């Protein structure tokens, strides 16, 4: 077990190193001169050259690469060209809304998807099963910006149950900030519940046909116990997998939803950074998101071990 985790951590570092390299290359392949862009159209060529020198953009590419990797390993992802702040600080500031938005969305998705998925599988072919599948398809196919706009219009503007958009001002308290996340969380929760619902249903259907479910019934227990204790635990692995992936996707920033609700999260930050050619921020975001992805994957795999003792690494 410890050996396995150690091996996985080594693997993680290799992945992150590759991501560092790719981030470095991609950003430099993009067109546009950040120095010229930062200084605006009126700047002289000398000013631009001076800024390039200051940023180290005039040095040979290998030198730039080595210093970039070296700094990244020390947790220094450079300075944002736009904010004039260290990238790590910029990212950290945007992490809170994104992380909580992801958690709430996942929670809402799970609350919607698992009970319905289980019930739909249990009553396979029934009206409710059909209805659940159809609704899930709809939820997954409607673009999140539309759902977002509709909920904003009716639940926030008309009924006033939620703040319409934003994340409060600098003095807004934590709970109040969380209130701003509720509506976008509902949107993302609905969108993401579809996939989880389908996985839960499919997995439960498989398991409910197993011989040990018949054994469980033959022991004289109620259906609730059969389904929730004997079947659900066995159906959990595919569900955990899809939940892990969904969470990783959410953490990497729900760009559209963050835009619609004007939430200063990772998704919003990355889009703006791309438009501003803020290389260090783009690189930093890529690295952080990739690391989170790998980490969530590792946690998912470890969760398998907890659920199923047959899983051997």
């Amino acid at each position, binding site marked *: 077990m410890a050996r396995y985790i150690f091996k996985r951590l080594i693997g993680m570092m290799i992945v992150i190193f590759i991501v560092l390299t790719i981030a470095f290359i991609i950003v430099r392949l993009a067109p546009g001169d950040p120095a010229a862009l930062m200084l605006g159209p009126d700047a002289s060529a000398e000013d631009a050259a001076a800024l390039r020198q200051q940023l180290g953009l005039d040095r040979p590419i290998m030198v730039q690469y080595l210093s970039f990797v070296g700094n990244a390993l020390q947790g220094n992802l450079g300075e944002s060209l736009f904010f004039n702040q260290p990238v790590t600080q910029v990212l950290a500031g945007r992490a809170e809304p994104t992380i909580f938005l992801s958690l709430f969305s996942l929670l809402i998705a799970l609350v919607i998807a698992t009970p319905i998925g289980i019930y739909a599988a249990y009553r396979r072919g029934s009206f409710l099963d059909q209805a659940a599948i159809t609704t899930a398809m709809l939820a997954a196919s409607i673009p999140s910006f539309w759902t977002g706009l509709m909920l904003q219009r009716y639940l926030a503007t008309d009924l006033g149950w939620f703040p319409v958009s934003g994340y409060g001002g600098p003095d807004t308290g934590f709970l109040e900030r969380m209130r701003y996340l509720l509506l976008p969380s509902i949107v993302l929760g609905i969108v993401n519940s579809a996939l989880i619902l389908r996985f839960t249903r499919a997995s439960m259907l498989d398991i409910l046909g197993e011989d*040990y479910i018949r*054994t469980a019934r*033959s*022991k*004289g*227990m109620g259906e609730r116990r059969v389904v929730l204790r004997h079947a659900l*635990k066995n159906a959990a692995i595919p569900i955990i997998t899809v939940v892990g992936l969904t969470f990783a996707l959410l953490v990497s920033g729900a760009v559209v939803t963050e835009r619609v609700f004007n939430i200063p999260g990772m998704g919003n930050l990355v889009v703006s950074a791309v438009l501003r050619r803020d290389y260090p921020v783009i690189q930093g975001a890529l690295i952080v998101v990739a690391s989170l992805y790998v980490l969530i994957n590792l946690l998912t795999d470890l969760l398998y071990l907890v659920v199923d003792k047959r899983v051997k690494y």
Partner: protein
Amino acid sequence: MTGPVLDVSNLQVTFRARGRSVTALRDVSFTLHPGKTLALVGESGSGKSVSSLAIMGLLPKNGAVAGGEIRYRRPDGKVSDLTTLPEREMRKLRGSSIAMIFQEPMSLLNPLFTIGDQIGEMLLLHDPLDAQARRKRVLEMLELVEIPAAASRLDNYPHELSGGMRQRVMIALALVCNPTLLIADEPTTALDVTIQAQILDLMRRLQKEMGMSILFITHDMGVVAEVADDVAVMYAGAIVEQAAVDTLFARPSHPYTRGLLGSIPMPGRPEGERLVPIPGTVPPLHAMPPGCAFAPRCKRADHACEHPVTLSELGQGHRIACFHPVSQEVEHV
């Protein structure tokens, strides 16, 4: 104890499939006496397993008992008709006084719970014991079914045991609440021959010790000869021949029973004698011939066999559903 433990009479089971209703069991009747073993024998699709599931009240959702009675004598002597018993009541009997062992030891234990957990759950459901007493009782059961180093097996998962061991665990699980009726659905079919013999020995010993009755479902005439007191041969959802085991093996009278016996090697058969397979297959449930279901495969069939046939008494409890029973004795048994 007086009277049979289980008395099934005129049991009918139907299944709905694609809007059609098909009859899976037709007028099945048999009785099982205390401490005895009744073997239900037949090919796949003959209705053996459906009978057992009907008794357990565990028919699949598209199946239902359409007629007949399943009278079960509870340990307290009270007789109930299981076909009309409410699910809540049935649940109390299931596992505690009527237990079942299934085929496929590989897949009938839940892979995510320990052996101890799964046997213990049976007690949890039916027998109010504290955790410690429960564990002790589970251990006793594992020792009873001769699992070596039983104490160290309690916390094992099913995948850590061999097929034979798992079937022993399954037996321990079924017997932990001292059932009076055990339904064993092909309990040894998936096992190696040597393991099979061990499991049959074990079941016989436990039956003697615990005094339970066994409804033994199998397709294997060799196993029938080993375990049964009485035999009911099933074909296409109906019983075609019923007798005490000695009678059946000495004077198999239904052409189908003879076919079953002729298609397996038996000790005492002259050397070099050929095994004779039964030609054809069981007719599908939705295309049953109006008369004797076995007629299309039967060498003795004629016009008479196009009429419905019912069981009739040949004497001493030997009953047969055939217009042209085979009368001569089998020389070699």
